[in-house]
Each structure stands twice: as C-alpha cells, then as structure tokens.
C-alpha cells in the first residue's frame, strides 16, 4: 500500500501531502525535509525509484511539480508511476491544462480528486471516466448548495 504522497515544487515547497499511515507531525516534517532534499538533488535521467528507509520511493516530475510516493517493499514501482500519471491526468482534465497555481489555489479540490483515486493508500478507481464523473457529481452538489445560498442572500438572509 502507499504510505504517503507528496507534491512539492522545485523550490522544495510542499503543495499537498496525504498520509496513509499514522505518523507524528514532527516525524512527517522530518521525512518531507529529507526526501525533498534527496529528490531535488537527483539528476533528470536518474532512476525514478529509490530505496529509502523501509520504503521504496517512486517520484516523477511534471513541469514545476514533483509527485512523490512512498510504497512498501512488495508494491509495484512502475504501476505507482502510473498512479501518479493518472492523478495528473485527472487534475489536467478537471482544471484544463493544470499548472502549479491551480493546485495552490484549489488545493482542496486537488485533495478531493486524490480521494477519488486513492483511498487508504490503495487505488480505488482506475477508470478516468468514473473518477471524473464522481468529481463532477460533487461539484453539482456544491452548485446546488451555492445556489440556495445566493437566493437566501438576495432575500437578505445570512
């Protein structure tokens, strides 16, 4: 299973972190610091996998963002790369050629999309269509809610 997923920029700024195993806040920070340093120091042609502590780290860079996952010994590295890719595809479809700024400003959406793809560190839905359908359904619920709010506001109610 995946232990955690990190998105960080070339400057080493964390843009998203999702942890799938109980970890103390202090420990999380330490892990992120160490990993970001290691990965940023690696050259482009290098292998996307590395052994680190008890994990296998799988990472890939998309434009200015690094996507990095920690998986367990028995897990499939190549397919983890494709989980990352599928996530990028979903973000791309949703935001329309996604860039780092989209993820900064709509970080909560980025989380919701990730939650459709991965649950508890395992892949939940591998079909792009089904994932996007689920996210669109969420947005629909949100619009309904917002619509009610606007009507109420127009009526002068909070």
């Amino acid at each position: 299973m995946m232990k955690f997923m990190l998105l960080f920029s070339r400057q080493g700024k964390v843009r998203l972190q999702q942890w799938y195993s109980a970890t103390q806040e202090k420990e999380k920070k330490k892990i992120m610091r160490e990993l970001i340093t290691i990965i940023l120091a690696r050259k482009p042609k290098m292998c996307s996998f590395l052994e680190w502590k008890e994990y296998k780290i799988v990472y890939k860079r998309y434009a200015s963002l690094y996507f990095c996952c920690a998986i367990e010994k028995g897990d499939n590295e190549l397919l983890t790369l494709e989980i990352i890719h599928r996530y990028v595809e979903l973000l791309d479809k949703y935001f329309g050629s996604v860039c780092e700024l989209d993820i900064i400003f709509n970080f909560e959406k980025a989380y919701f999309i990730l939650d459709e793809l991965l649950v508890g560190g395992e892949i939940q839905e591998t079909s792009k269509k089904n994932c996007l359908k689920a996210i669109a359904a969420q947005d629909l619920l949100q619009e309904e809610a917002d619509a009610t709010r606007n009507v109420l506001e127009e009526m002068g109610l909070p």
Partner: protein
Amino acid sequence: MPTVAKGDAMRGLAVFISDIRNCKSKEAEQKRINKELANIRSKFKGDKTLDGYSKKKYVCKLLFIFLLGHDIDFGHMEAVNLLSSNKYTEKQIGYLFISVLVNTESELIRLIIQAIKNDLFTRNPVHICLALQCIANIGSKEMAEALAPEIPKLIVSGETLDAVKQSACLCLLRLFRTSPETVPSGEWTQRVGHLLNDQHLGVVTSATSLIHTLAQKTPEDFRQCVQLAISRLSRIVTSSYTDLQDYTYYFVPAPWLSVKLLRLLQVYPPPEDPAMRGRLNECLETILNKAQEPPKSKKVQHSNAKNAVLFEAINLIIHHDTEPTLLVRACNQLGQFLQHRETNLRYLALESMCLLASSEFSHEAVKKHMDTVITALKTERDVSVRQRAVDLLYGMCDKSNAEEIVAEMLSYLETADYSIREEMVLKVAILAEKYPVDYTWYVDTILNLIRIAGDYVSDEVWYRVIQIVINRDDVQGYAAKVVFEALQAPACHENMVKVGGYILGEFGNLIAGDQRSSPMVQFQLLHSKYHLCSAPTRGLLLSTYIKFINLFPEIKGQLQDVLRNNNNLQNADAELQQRAIEYLQLSTVASQDVLATVLEEMPPFPERESSILAKLKKKKPNVSDIEVKEGKKSSNPPTLNNSAANTPEATPASAPVPVMAAAPAPAPVQSASDDLLGLSAGPAAAVPVTNNFAAPAAPAGGGGLLVDVFDTPPAQNNVSTALAPQAEDNFFNMAGETAPSGDASATELDGRFAIKNNGVLFENELLQIGVKAEYKGNLGRLGLFYGNKTSYPFQFFTPTVSCPGELASALNVQTKPLDVNTVEGGAQVQQIINVECIADFLDAPILSIKFSYSGSMQQINLMLPVMLNKFFEPVEMDATTFFNRWKQLNSPGQEEQKIFKATYPINQDNSRTKLLGFGFGLLDGVDPNPDNFVGAGIIKAQSSQVGCLLRLEPNMQAQMYRLTLRTSSNSVTTRLADLLLKLF
C-alpha cells in the same frame, strides 16, 4: 489569480492565498499569516452564530496555512461541527480537515467517530463515501474498534452502490491493517471472495486489494479465490484493449487489476489442479509473449503499464519456482531489459534478476548476463542502479565465477560511492569465504579488501580471516608471509596492523627462518606501527609481543624493554597498563615450559556460520531471504545457528539448544565479538584454551577484563585464573558491569523486570516480545505480545512455558494456547499466561518459542520475568511495631546480611524507586539516619504468607551498601536478598 475552475470557490480564501503569494519576504508572509490566524481565532471565539459557509472558509484557510508548514492548534472543533452540516461541501471540507490534520490521539476522536457513524447510517451514498474515505485515510485503532463491525455489511449488501462498495472494501482493508482483531472473519468473508466475479472492474480492483491482505493472514479462508483470480486474470490478458473500455490504460487492459490478481496468487503455492495450473501458465506465457510484441503506443505510460504486469508475473513465476521454462524465459526477458535505454527498467531488471539468481532453475541463465551486469556496475550513472548491480553480482556468484566477480567488485570498490562501500566490503568478504578458489586466494582477497577499503572493513571481517587462517594449517605460513609483506607498505591501515599483529603472533615462527623476516625484523616492523595505532590495537600488539617472547626467546630482552617502557607501564589507559604489567610479570616469573603452555597456539575454532553473513543480514534483511532460500537447497543450511548466535538471551542450561551447547563460551549480547569472541578479541587471545586456562568472553565494550576471577561453574568451561594478583581489585571493580557472560542476560532480565511489569522482554531481527503483567496477592497475569518484525509469516509458532525442577511445585503456570499458529509479517499476537505462587521460589519459568521462518526452524529460550517479589505487597507500620517485629525475627537463618559494592551510582531517589518498585512499603523516619532505608512487605504465596523487613544502608564514600533482611522463612530471606543485590 487563475480562473477558478468550477463552482463558487471561497472568495476570501482566494484573496488570502493571493496575499500570501504576493508577500515579498518570509517576515511579511509570517505577519500576514499571524494576522489571519488572529482573525480566525476571534471569529471562532466571538461569533457564536458563525454560519456554515464562514466556518468552512476559515477551516479551509487554516488548512492552507498548515500546508505552508505552520502548526495549527485550533479550529478542530469547528471542523468537527462541519461534519454534521447537511450541506455536502461543508461536510466535505470538515472531512478534509479531519483527514489531514487530526492525529489519531486527538481527544475529539469520539466526536468524530459519532459524526462518522451518523453519516455511515444515512441513505445518502455520497455521505457514506465521505465517511468511508475518512475512516480509511485516518484508520486509527479507536475507529477500527467503533466502526469496523459496520463495514462488511456494506460490502456484501446487494443494495450498496458500486462506488460505496469500492470505498468500503478499502476502508475495511485499512482497519484490518490497523487492528486485525476488529475484523473477525465471518459469513461475509466467503461473499467478499465472490466479488472477484463482479461485473464492475472498479469493485473487483478494490476487493482484490482487500482479499490479498486478508488472505495473507488466513490463506485457508480464501483458497477458493485462487480459481476465481486465475479465471479473471485469464479473461483480462486475453481480452483486446477495447473490451475493457475505460479500464484499459494506454492500450493495456486493466493493469492495476492484473497486478493485484498476480499478487494475490503469490500468497498461495502453485495450484495443484492441473487444469487450473495449465490455465495460469497460459496467462503467464501470454504476458511474456506480449512483452515481445511491438508496442501499441510510443508513450512511456504504455510501456510502464505493460511492464508493471510483466514484472509482477515474473514475481509470481519466481514465487512458484516450479516451472523451469517460465523461469528461463523470464530471465531472458529481464536480460533484454538490462540494456534498455530506460533507467527504470534497468533498475527493476537488476532487482528482479537477483531473485531469479536464487532459483536453481534459472541460476545458470542469470549467470550468462554477468558481463552486462559488470558493465552496468562500471557505467551506470545512478548510484541506486549500481547498488542493484552489486546485489545481482552477489546473487549470481558461485564457485564457477567467484574469482572474476570478486575481482570486479574489488576493482569497483576503489571508486565506489561511500554510501555502499561497507556493504560491498561485507559482500566481497562473504563471497571470498563462501567460494574460495583456494585459501591463499582467500587470504589475498581479504588483505586486498583491507588495503583498498580499510575504513569500511568492520571487525567481523578481520576476525573472520583470522578464524579461517587458524583453522587451516595449509595456509598459515602463506598468511604470515603476505601480512608481513603488506605491513611493509609505508601507510598501512590499522586493520592491517591488527591482522598482521595477530597472525605474526601466532605463526610468525613459520617465516622466521628467512633472514628477511627474522624475529627481530618482524618485531621491529610491527613496533614501527605501534605508536600510530589506537589503544585497542596497541593492546593486541602487546599480546603479540608476549607471544613473541614465547616463540622467539632470543629477542625476549627487546620485547621486555617495550613492556617495561614507562609509556606502557604507566599508561593512562588502564587496559594497556594492565597488559604491560601482567605480560612483563608473566615473562619474568614463568618458566619457559609454563610460558609455552599458557601461550600455546590457538586451537581451531568451532565451525559456525560466518559472523559477516550475520552482519549483512542485519544490515539488509532482504539479503537473508536469498541466503535462506539457497540454504534450503544446499546441503549446509544456516539453520538455527544463526538465530541462536544472535539471541541476546543466554539459554538456560535446563533447556539446552544444541547449537548453544556446542559453542565454547556463551555468546555475549553484542554482535561484534560473537564469533571470535574472547578467542581473538582482547588480551584473552593470549591465553589458549587448555584444561587449565579458559578464554573468557571479553565483551567488546566491557573494558576487557583479562580473566575472570569469579567462580563460574566449570560446566561453562570458564575456569578462571588470575595472572597477576595485584590486579585483583581491578577485577572486583568490574564485577558489576561484566558479570560472567553465561548468565548475563538472565541477570539483566532480573534487574529490569524485578521492578517493573511492562516492557520489551526480547528483541532480535525477527521477533519482538513485549510483556505486560499484573499481580494481585498470589496471582499474576502476564500478557505476552509476539510481534513479527519481518514481512513474512512465522509458521508453526508455538510458545511453551516450563517450570524446571522444584519450580514446578512452587509456581502454578497456566498458558492459554494461541488461537493461531501463524504470525503474519508485521502482525502481533497476544498470549495470556496466568501464574499462581504456591511457595517461594528462586528460578524464573522458562519460555521457549519455536517457529519456522522462511523454511528454517527457529528456537528462542527466555526467562519469564516472574520473580518472587512480584507476589510481594507493601506494609505500613510505625516505628515501634517495626522494631518489635525486627527483634522477634532473630532466630538463625531469619536474617541475611550482605555488604556489597554498588553496581550503579548511589542515588537516594533511584534507590527509593527501586525499593518501591520491588514491592516494599518504605517506612520513613524509622531509621534515625535519613540516608538509610527501612521497609516492610509480605510475600503472598498460597501456602504461606511471609512478612519481610528490610534495612538498606548506603555508604557514599566507599560506594558500598549494607543490606539486612529479616523474614520468617529462611529460604525467602536468601531469595529476596539475591534479587535485591542485583538491583543496587
């Protein structure tokens, strides 16, 4: 600001994020954040009627601040409130905050669980999904306990939507990982298995993840899944990429599901049914065939997905290890990848081939790729890939290619990355030992190793070369000659001096005939290095000198001069000083005959598993898998030997483990000295094992006691002798810290567990045993927790408790058998043991554990921390009562007095804690001297209750204690005194 994608996002949030991004400096950003935090805090505090939207917005801002790397210490309550909002988006943000920010120990966890429960029982599937995903992402123990029983219903109910089923499967999987006991198997288990046939591939994928993990724990419950998985897999691999529609990923049909099915099959042995087996082999062949087809797309995603399935199929082939054709095909396929332009593929191919190397069917096929791998070692630019190449070379090495591989590894070592040098040194040393061309080659290799990478040569490596030289007569002269030559290099590594010193000390006489290496030349050569060496090496050289005095009486004078040198005689290092004094004395007092007996040549070492291998296994647990696998096939498996040698607990004599019995001296706790222990390490090396002299185990860090002056039982072959009487005090001082190694672990056990009930009882690289105990009156209950630290199951796991000898009548022990006999990788099982104290006792019951790990039986024997004082209850009384009782207990045998040196620094508070922990009630103010302790308690045995009174008088100046105990039973008095003695 980019256009907001969809829906009305929170404006205030976007403004805040823009503000932060516009900050020019770290300080400005911090200021803006502090301002926002203050604002949110006041909003949360002041405005009781804050609406859901605002709450959502502020919680979101907090989340953003958290992502920037700041700690968030409020807002949790508001987030929990959002959970019960009936607006989806508010609920969703609430859940997000909880998943990302709430740690599992939060005091809000009950409220959260309640909110989750409410959502779980609604009929609204989107709410149920939110709740399930949140549980799965947090997965705490409390959640498992409160919610796990609800999840299986959702999975197997016919009414549940597919999306909910998917989340529910993964949710249950997470809870099962957290605490398997909350997910008992039941009627639902069967039905989960049938989800492999579900129409919805998303459901099948999630269900397969769940089944895979459940099946690892209880394979029998899911055996029917093997057939389902094979037929599902077969349908996928034979489908065209259009059949599975959106579950086809870049022209590869359902790669995630395929990989999961292949992993599930790796839980089981190859199917016995020939039809099933045929079908599975067809699948695997199809997958291998597809790898040869031209790619359907140039995109890396296509090749990644295809190869992900291929590698997993190869893993299954290796796991089965029964189909020679498939194994060889797999190997050829990987061979192609070794030269692929994708670094990732080269890396994975090297890794996977390493596993193939350990199969007897494909070992030869792997060897064909040696040259490619050696090239990889030399040319790969990424150190992680080179590391894999080293691993593979190690894996494919056997008698036929050892010389070449070792030579290549040695030459690579000169430029190797620092991060992998130590491991490489170990690997070279092991290969050289395992597949020696001849023993002179072996000696050359190890000396080369020290020359090239001396800093990375750990003690185990040079111990081992000495051990082997000593055991092989035919190589001793050669070894002496080459170390002599190696030492002539102007700058030679200290490890070389150690090996040289030792070998010349033993076998220098074999080359002394040659004028170029006459005794005097040998001595001068060694001594020219003396001043550049660290104290332990100098100590070793001093031992060499005393051996020289025996071997070469003609240069005795010069040697004695060195010993007599003030630098040595008055060395600040007590060890060196002691050696110099004792050796000088020995050379003066003893006759040539006595000297020859004392310094007789070392006897051969018993054949044991290489300590280097043990070290490598510790460093890289996955290596041991390979070794064990090999072991199964070779005639000389590294069975128990390994586990026993590394077991920190000494085996109680009453339950001997064969290997331990074979070892000359009980192995001490530390790894470093395991093998050559006491025989080569420390000055003890000077003392050969004969009938009169035993080599004491000198624990590496123990300050090296020369010989043990304590009366240890002769059975331990540890008869002591004091070489120099003046050193006796010195030994006495060390008594506390270095007890005779035979029962060192038992002592340690008593010390720690006499005054506490919980803790880690035992730990090695496989197993950890924790203990939690409660005592009341004459009854006690111990919970033992056996934790499997590896990722493989322990099979036939059987712990038994025995009460040897008279203990059987004094202690009634009831052990609840385990309800499983397999401990899964990473899992923990608990065992309850009830004890009843019938009468007073001295020895602790023995826990012996047997299990099979990777096919080899392991046995561990330990003492259970059940001591007499566990059945001890404190008593309060006033001074008059105390003195009255004290006076009554004056018959012979009722009093025991011990005067002893403090083992630990004397400290009032610590002593207090220890006595209270031991079970005494402390009576303050009874003794006029406030430094003294007076205490009272009762031993509650079933047959009798024994009152005990204690007085403990510390003497700070002398660092001594006087302990006086009075009880109504003679045996209790002695036994308690024994236990107490070890505590101070």
